[in-house]
């Protein structure tokens, strides 16, 4: 069939009288369009990047122009969790709980070097090397801290990512219920419940070399 006659193709020829009064789109596009333009962030700032996030919400770089109108403190009402700041081992159980409580569709933006990969504090003993060790992340924004314009660019990247999703593959319409991520526990060090066997195996193994850097060369 010619492109102009196929109503499912973008080149469909609309009648002269209906030009300007009719819009043809696909369900995917309008579904994604409405979702990407009304992402509500969760009010969740950890450290220095939170101040830049607040500046992005303030009057100079208003992010309600992008549809992020209100920051909801409750995870049940939020769509996107912007993890802004260093993630420490004491705080990660709460972050995982909050992520589990968010309703689908939900997205996570790792803002700043600390949330992406540990940042300058990566060598510390209470710092988690990036929030993606526990929670699936959609967009990473490097910088320390990323300027508000960089954060807005990251939001636009997330919006473009949402544009590419399809209803056929939407995970929230799957038949199986989504499995919540198990909450880590605080013991002699952070304990991830998914790794009990690995931990027991390693602590009962023979002595490891003293300086891990020797393994490199």
């Amino acid at each position, binding site marked *: 069939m010619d492109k102009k006659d196929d109503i499912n193709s973008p080149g469909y020829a609309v009648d002269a009288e209906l030009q300007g009064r009719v819009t043809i789109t696909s369900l995917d596009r309008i579904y994604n369009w409405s979702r990407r333009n009304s992402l509500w962030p969760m009010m969740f700032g950890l450290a220095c990047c939170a101040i830049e996030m607040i500046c992005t919400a303030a009057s100079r770089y208003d992010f309600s122009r992008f549809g992020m109108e209100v920051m909801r403190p409750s995870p049940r009402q939020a769509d996107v969790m912007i993890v802004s700041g260093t993630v420490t081992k004491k705080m990660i159980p709460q972050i995982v709980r909050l992520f589990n409580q968010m309703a689908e569709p939900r997205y996570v933006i790792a803002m700043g070097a600390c949330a992406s990969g540990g940042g300058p504090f990566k060598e510390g003993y209470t710092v988690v090397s990036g929030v993606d060790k526990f929670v699936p992340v959609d967009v990473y924004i490097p910088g320390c801290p*990323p300027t508000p314009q960089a954060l807005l660019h990251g939001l636009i990247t997330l919006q473009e990512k949402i544009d590419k999703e399809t209803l056929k593959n939407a995970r929230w319409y799957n038949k199986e219920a989504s499995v919540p991520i198990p909450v880590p526990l605080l013991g002699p060090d952070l304990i991830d419940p998914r790794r009990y066997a690995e931990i027991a195996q390693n602590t009962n193994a023979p002595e490891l070399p003293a300086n891990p850097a020797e393994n490199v060369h």
Partner: protein
Amino acid sequence: MNGLGIFRGLWITFKHFVDTYVEDLTYRGKRYNNPKGIQSRLKGDTRGIFTIQYPEEKMPVPEEFRFVQFLVYEEGPNGEKKQRCTSCGICAKVCPPQCIWIVRGTDPNTGRPVPEPSEFYIDVDICMNCGLCAEYCPFDAIKMDHDYEISTADRMKNNIYDIDKLSKPVSYYASIRPVNYAREVAARAEKASKKAAA
């Protein structure tokens, strides 16, 4: 009179509200989406709407602004790249979170070190954008970039920058930091003339 304080506050808010319209009318539609309009919102006497509408209007960054690094190379006449970096290692030593990895080049025949990096990595997930590497480089080889639009969806693939991703020409450096570039060129010319005179 009870309530006068609240009334005073509301009057200030009302004045801010009216100012937004007055300012737009004064500029007669030229307040947005052009460089002069952006400048008018950055000055000390700005009133009215304060928003800089990214991404249509990007706020110009000042010269000293620092984000991720880049390595400077000089362009030869046939388009070949001559890296300024001599792999002295000072930037790797001075970096606070130690996010710079350098493999010093070696001559394949003699095995001695040559002043060229064979590999150069920066882990952007650790870099704190402090600028100490650029400040203490004796060869003006590594400088801080202005590009902040580097968000990505996959950090394992993208966030360790190798020497190809980091290299940018001297002309780019001169375009983003003209005052610093002019000062360095003058200093180098002075040193060269002193050496020639001696």
